[in-house]
């Protein structure tokens, strides 16, 4: 019920359009019912007139028939246009809303949210919601309005018939659908689950086709897909059967109740309470009048599916948003880590332990160390992806006030110290401003399915071709790009297919160089590059940084250009084991010496 109400609230902006659609829908249905009833009345009238030879006014009924026919056809067209327009507006709104809600959750929940599953949610679940108005809400509203009208009309002829039909409407429109609703609740949840499971498996499997082929697991993968398909269709078939059974029973009820009404009216016909014209009209009216509730079974069957989809969407939206207490504009200045200890929510051991570090404005700093030493964590924290410092204390304060400190107690125990920029706590800085100040090339960089120029414009949305060419030159990729028939406008395929690993890497460095941030962070910038390119690009980066007066933070495990750095930080298992300039470290640090004798 909660989900239902939330959905209605989300649809609010479309409500006027939706109500108008419902009104048109009612008019159309009533016109259709009256049409057949009046026709039956008319020909019976004519037949009686024919046999008895009485002259009758046949113009009025004929005109009514024509009028109803037009109302029915035009009404249906208008109603469909209106209701569908309302639905699509609502869908676009939902999709937009969902993305908006999702945006703050990544990468904080990166590990729990799989992109295949997310895609399934975004697309299928929202598409499933298109049923909500058209096939759930609308039929319910139509039934609620038109059933009383029909029953009132029937009561004029015979109150008994009206009561019988009201009961029949209730059975067809409510009792049976509720029974089938209960029968299909679990199944439709299962269906929704299997549906997204299938998407997820397909997206992952096709993305990893090489590995699957080399390790001979393509057959077992195909078998598992066939298996999921079988389960999925099995569940769907069971839903189809429930539905078909319901349709059959309703069919029976409709036709049997028409017959029952006929037999019920027989005594009244013989006593003359009901004339024969009205009898025919009533029988035909009864036959067609079920149109008012005919969509109810489907509505109630779709209701659980829509609600299941909606619940899944809300489950993501309702995830706790990482604390963001940032309000300050960033100020240019030194970055300090003070006694900083950090662990990820899902890890038991801290990834950073007691870090003390300062990066002065304009300084060039290298961070070296084995993989897993915490280098990437250190720089990712600077982007404000995980709450630190005062943000954490504010979480704890609020949790303590709720007298439920259990879930965050561990986090607070492990996370200590703070990061500051120009003496301002990092968590107090507004994220947008922070990311304008600091730019990061992460190891998990993503090349979008767009043109090379579009990918570059992500970093600077108003970059000119001139600027783009310049940074491409700095990363040695300009020759490749200009060799392409479409140059910068070349379209890059899925995950940057069409670029080699090294080219994608260089494109990402180019993106970074386009940013006019005060601090540039490069996480393994020369990964996948050969020595020749590596050196040239590093040299260009250093020159660029110097010219732009940017601070530079480079994570690396290669001894490249270290002598040009102002400071080198050596990390090991989450701790800083040494820091100093090249000349300081070269003589008294073992790890550093080993790294240098390495090509």
């Amino acid at each position: 019920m909660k989900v239902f109400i939330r959905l209605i609230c989300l649809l609010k902006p479309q409500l006027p359009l939706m109500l108008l659609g419902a009104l048109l829908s009612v008019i159309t249905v009533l016109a259709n019912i009256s049409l057949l009833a009046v026709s039956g009345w008319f020909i019976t009238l004519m037949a009686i007139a024919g046999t008895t030879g009485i002259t009758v006014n046949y113009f009025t009924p004929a005109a009514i028939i024509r009028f109803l026919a037009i109302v029915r056809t035009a009404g249906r067209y208008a109603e469909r246009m209106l209701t569908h327009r309302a639905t699509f507006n609502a869908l676009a709104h939902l999709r937009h809303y969902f993305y908006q809600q999702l945006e703050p959750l990544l990468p904080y929940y990166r590990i729990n949210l799989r992109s295949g599953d997310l895609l399934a949610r975004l697309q299928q679940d929202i598409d499933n919601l298109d049923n909500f108005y058209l096939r759930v809400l609308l039929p319910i509203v139509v039934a609620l309005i038109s059933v009383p009208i029909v029953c009132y009309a029937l009561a004029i002829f015979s109150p008994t018939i009206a009561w019988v039909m009201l009961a029949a409407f209730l059975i067809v429109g409510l009792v049976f659908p509720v029974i089938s609703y209960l029968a299909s609740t679990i199944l439709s949840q299962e269906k929704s689950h299997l549906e997204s499971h299938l998407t997820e498996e397909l997206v992952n499997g096709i993305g990893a086709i090489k590995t699957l082929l080399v390790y001979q697991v393509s057959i077992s993968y195909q078998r598992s897909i066939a298996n999921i398909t079988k389960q999925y269709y099995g569940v769907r078939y069971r839903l189809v059967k429930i539905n078909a059974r319901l349709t059959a029973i309703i069919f029976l009820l409709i036709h049997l109740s028409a017959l029952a009404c006929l037999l019920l009216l027989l005594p009244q016909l013989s006593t003359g309470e009901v004339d024969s014209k009205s009898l025919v009209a009533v029988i035909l009216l009864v036959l067609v009048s079920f149109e008012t509730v005919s969509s109810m079974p489907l509505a109630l069957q779709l209701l659980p599916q829509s609600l299941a989809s909606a619940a899944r969407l809300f489950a993501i939206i309702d995830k706790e948003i990482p604390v963001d207490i940032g309000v300050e504009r960033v100020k240019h200045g030194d970055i300090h880590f003070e006694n900083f200890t950090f662990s990820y929510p899902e890890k038991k051991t801290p990834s950073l332990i007691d870090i003390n570090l300062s990066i002065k404005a304009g300084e060039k700093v290298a961070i070296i160390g084995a993989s897993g030493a915490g280098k990437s964590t250190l720089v990712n924290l600077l982007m404000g992806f995980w709450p630190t410092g005062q943000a954490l204390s504010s979480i704890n304060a609020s949790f303590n006030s709720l007298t439920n400190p259990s879930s965050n107690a561990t986090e607070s125990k492990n996370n200590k110290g703070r990061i500051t920029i120009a003496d301002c706590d990092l968590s107090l800085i507004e994220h947008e401003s922070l990311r304008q100040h600091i730019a990061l090339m992460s190891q998990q960089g993503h090349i979008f399915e767009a043109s090379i120029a579009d990918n570059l414009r992500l970093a600077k949305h108003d970059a000119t071709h001139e600027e783009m060419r310049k940074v491409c030159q700095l990363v040695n990729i300009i020759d490749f790009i200009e060799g392409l028939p479409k140059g910068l406008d070349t379209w890059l395929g899925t995950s940057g297919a069409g670029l080699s690993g090294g080219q994608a890497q260089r494109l990402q460095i180019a993106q970074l160089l386009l940013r006019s941030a005060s601090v540039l962070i490069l996480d393994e910038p020369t990964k996948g590059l050969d020595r020749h390119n590596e050196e040239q690009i590093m040299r260009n980066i250093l020159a660029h940084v110097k010219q732009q007066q940017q601070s530079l933070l480079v994570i690396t495990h290669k001894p490249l250009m270290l002598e040009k750095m102002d400071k080198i930080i050596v990390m090991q298992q989450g701790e800083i084991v040494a820091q100093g300039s090249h000349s300081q470290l070269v003589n008294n640090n073992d790890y550093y010496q080993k790294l240098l004798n390495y090509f």
Partner: protein
Amino acid sequence: MTEKNEQQKKQVNDWLKYQKKYAHGKLSRAIALGSLNGLLMIIQTAMLAYLIDLVIFPSEDLSLTNSLSNSVTTESILFSETTLISMALVAVIFCRAALGYFSECYSRRGAMDIKANIRSRLLNRLFQFGPAYTQTKGSAKLSHLLHQGIDSLEDYFAGYLPVIAYCAVIPLAILIAVFPIDWQSGLILLITAPMVPFFMILIGHKAQRLNQEHWAKLQRMSSHFLDIIQGLTQLKIFNASRREIAAVKKISDDYGDETMGILKIAFLSSFVLEFLASISIALVAVVLGFRLYYGDVDYVFALWVLLLAPEFYLPFRQLGTQYHAKMAGVTAAEDLVEVLSQPQVHYSLEEKFTAPFSISLVQAEFAYPDRSNALTQVNIEFSSQGLYAVIGESGSGKSTLIDMVLGFVQPDSGQVVVNNQPLTAANRDHWLKHCGWISQQAQVFYGSLAFNIALSDNYQDDLVIEALEKAGLASFVQTLEQGIESEIGEDGAGLSGGQAQRLALARVFYHQPDVLILDEPTSHLDQQTEQIITSSINAYAENHIVIVIAHRLHTVIDAKKIIVLEQGKVIETGTHQELLSHDGYYAQQVNV
């Protein structure tokens, strides 16, 4: 151009019809039951009309002859006839309900059988074509086609096909029933009937084109959303994620407008149909009314015809709604046919490969579409166990070379020969049984650590642990609460780049391939781990063929042969010493 389109359309339609056989008769059964249901409807309306006539105009002959003798008998005769007809009517109604039920079940089951079959075949075909094909098509696009694309065929098979059959059967039966009674009404129905398909074709043509655009848009939207979600962190870093919200909104709005465009046509077509139906029902009613007035026709027949008239148009109206399903089906089928009509690879069962291996590339050349040659005139031999290194600048064709050795890429000219047997798409999978492969970015699957190593749920714990040890991951795994059973996320979230790479290496040690191919395996790694891995690989190379793409030259000093590529050409080969003395590209690189 149009001729080609016509041909294509025919091919797609033929293909769709051909798929019916995978329903194993279920669809035909559904159609037969549905048609029978339609015929019973004619009888049912006749009975209803007769019943109404009976109660409204109690037979005058009867009352005349019997009124003198006994009025009670009249009543009882009348009553018993009413009862009899009512009973028969109830029986017919029950029959129709049952027929409807079974028809629906059969048609849906049939459609699902067909879809499941198409999905397996399509997936199988994609794995045959391999990564070269899936990469050009885009994996999001293909998975959308495999799922929603195929599912959109359901309404074609379960909805459209049966309705087509009903359109042929039911109106014809009604005409046969109506003509002898009332040829004027029959004529009205007969004349308006052909106008229905005429209008539908007229409107359908435009809708078809719109629908194709819509399908393309849907697919683009699908890959766009996945792209955005996968790259959300990247967008955030650039403060572009908020901007992207506007883009999502625009795409969704466009999608709605697009769909409205299609629906407008569909609604218009049903508007025309309903209008036609209404007009002719009204005509029939008026004609009947006047004939009744002049006593030309019996009331019972008139009522029957009036009851049949809406039923006459019902299949056409259903066709109107299902026509939309047909077009969606045909457009989806076009993409399916495109994949499935690619020349099939015929697997040879005999061409097995047995160790020891000797692999050679003979005059191999390859170019990606619209690009200059990736490889030109390459002649290389990997003749016995040992470490082979391929080096060169990025873009020099190293990855293409590896794909060629693995059989994922077929040379445009020249060939790859394994033990005197040319490597083709046909024997690729036999060959891959002997190969292991690690990419630049290790693929990590959602599942447990052990599953990721064995790539199967049946693994031996001790072998997994042994493989982890060789890859230098054992100590890391010990820190995990659940050890090798720990779940790891998609794209290796939860593992560092180096750890993911070592995981891929453990996979290799677990499977023990005869030929191991590594694409820059140590590029993410720090020196310590690199040393561990390099020595593991070197040890492995003592008994196996190992081909490695390398950037860090010191890792290949001990290689048996170093192959230097430049712009798709082999410019130098030899050992470290030979190449140093040769004083070419390699020597320059080492001495930088």
